[in-house]
């Protein structure tokens, strides 16, 4: 009995929420086709495989690996390296693997501060002995070990070479299905794969391009957080002073959030050719600030008025880099002084 071997599919979660897996399952009945076409060889969310199974596969055994989640600890990194070695095509799947996403916001603070919040300074905690997980612990049964928690969250492409990227938090199911069809055609009929390094499942323009809300001249004299205002339907949110990352975000999701009155949060990442999404958004949003006619103000008054408007935008770093901190130009806050001395300066 002879039949062509099915291509092998793996999906892994590193530092992530599991939403990417849900999004894959949300392709609906097509999941049955995926099961028909592919052999699942590693997919901890839905099937029982062990890392040791992967380690025993020959190199390049997996045809397609969808890797989601950021690199937060040494386990994430080891698994990423292992899967890279065993996979022909490695895909950074979703915003965490692509650009750090929410986990990378912790790059604005230090590892110590993060651990202190999680294990000590939190009203819902009861940890009087200040117990922290240890990388190694001696117990009667022997030595136990845990992965090392890194100082900085890294993206997948900062750890291993990545063939394709699928943006989104999470990527939209229709887009995932469209990509899977291309990949299936490539593996079964020898159709061409997209060019290496491509960003798949998204457009190459700004989100505003597919947003149905009506835009006018922007002049914002104060910004609103979502709970502070009831947006006027049909009108551009940014025009109303609601932060919307549309102008600095890649399209592809059909403007799901702005359509329902929630400003775009920027999860599809920067557009083609933009290195730093937050800086671009900062540029765009600053230009909308309205201080009346600048000619009526002297230089100090002008600066003070702009400062007043800017003060209505709390947490600019967390807002403009909500998803892209891991890929931003500065990557995160200034390193702690002790880290600097290690590097040989002060």
């Amino acid at each position, binding site marked *: 009995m002879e039949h062509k071997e099915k291509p092998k599919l793996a999906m892994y979660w590193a530092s992530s929420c599991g939403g990417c897996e849900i999004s894959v399952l949300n392709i609906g009945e097509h999941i049955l086709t995926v099961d028909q076409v592919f052999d699942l060889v590693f997919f901890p969310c839905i099937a029982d495989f062990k890392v040791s199974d992967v380690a025993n596969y020959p190199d390049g055994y997996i045809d397609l690996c969808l890797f989601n989640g950021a690199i937060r600890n040494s386990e994430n990194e080891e698994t990423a390296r292992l899967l890279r070695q065993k996979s022909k095509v490695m895909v950074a799947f979703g915003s965490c693997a692509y650009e750090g996403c929410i986990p990378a916001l912790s790059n604005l603070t230090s590892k110590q501060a993060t651990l202190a919040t999680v294990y000590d300074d939190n009203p819902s905690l009861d940890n009087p002995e200040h117990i922290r997980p240890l990388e190694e612990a001696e117990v009667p049964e022997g030595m136990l070990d845990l992965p090392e928690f890194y100082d900085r969250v890294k993206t997948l492409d900062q750890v291993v070479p990545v063939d394709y990227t699928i943006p989104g938090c999470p990527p939209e199911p229709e887009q995932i299905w469209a990509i899977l069809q291309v990949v299936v055609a490539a593996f079964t009929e020898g159709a061409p794969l997209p060019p290496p390094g491509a960003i798949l499942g998204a457009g190459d323009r700004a989100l505003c391009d597919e947003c149905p809300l009506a835009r006018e001249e922007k002049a914002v004299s104060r910004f609103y957080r979502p709970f502070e205002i009831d947006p006027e339907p049909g009108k551009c949110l940014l025009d109303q002073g609601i932060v919307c990352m549309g102008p600095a975000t890649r399209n592809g999701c059909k403007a799901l959030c702005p359509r329902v009155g929630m400003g775009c949060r920027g999860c599809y990442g920067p557009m083609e050719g933009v290195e730093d999404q937050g*800086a671009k958004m900062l540029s765009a949003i*600053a*230009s909308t600030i309205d201080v009346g006619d600048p000619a009526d103000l002297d230089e100090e008054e002008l600066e003070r008025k702009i400062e007043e408007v800017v003060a209505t935008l709390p947490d600019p770093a967390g807002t403009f880099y909500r998803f892209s901190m891991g890929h931003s*130009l*500065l990557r995160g*806050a*200034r*390193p702690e002084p002790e880290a600097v001395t*290690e590097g040989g*300066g002060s």
Partner: protein
Amino acid sequence: MNNPFEPVIVGFLCNWCSYRAADLAGTARLKYAPNMRAIRVMCSGRVDPQFVLKAFREGADGVMIAGCHPGACHYVEGNIKALKRFVLLRSLLQQWGIEKERLQIVWASASEGTILAEAVNRMTEEIRALGPLQWQPGRTVAQREPELAEV
């Protein structure tokens, strides 16, 4: 090894006013701190916040944006846009641990060589007091000077 710290300031000077102010400071033989590396841009409004972030990442201790006085922009209000971005960028940089003195905006018209020179002097001393930024530890500008000189 024991070099005293000399701040490196990247200055984005607009073609129509501030670059000419720097030129004037030169032809008038004004003596001022040599710490600012001037980059001519057509307008202070041309300064993409990415330029500023890149300068800090690549080793600048400070960034100066200099343009025409408000109301005197060659492109009507490029400098007002620059000021709006500057104010927002300055508050963002503080979340990253970059002190506000490290990013400054200066208005200097083509005839105000002294104002520009004074601003450079003042900013140099403020940054000297703060110390190096050294965004990438172990990769100081002084260490990179030879490779930069080759370019």
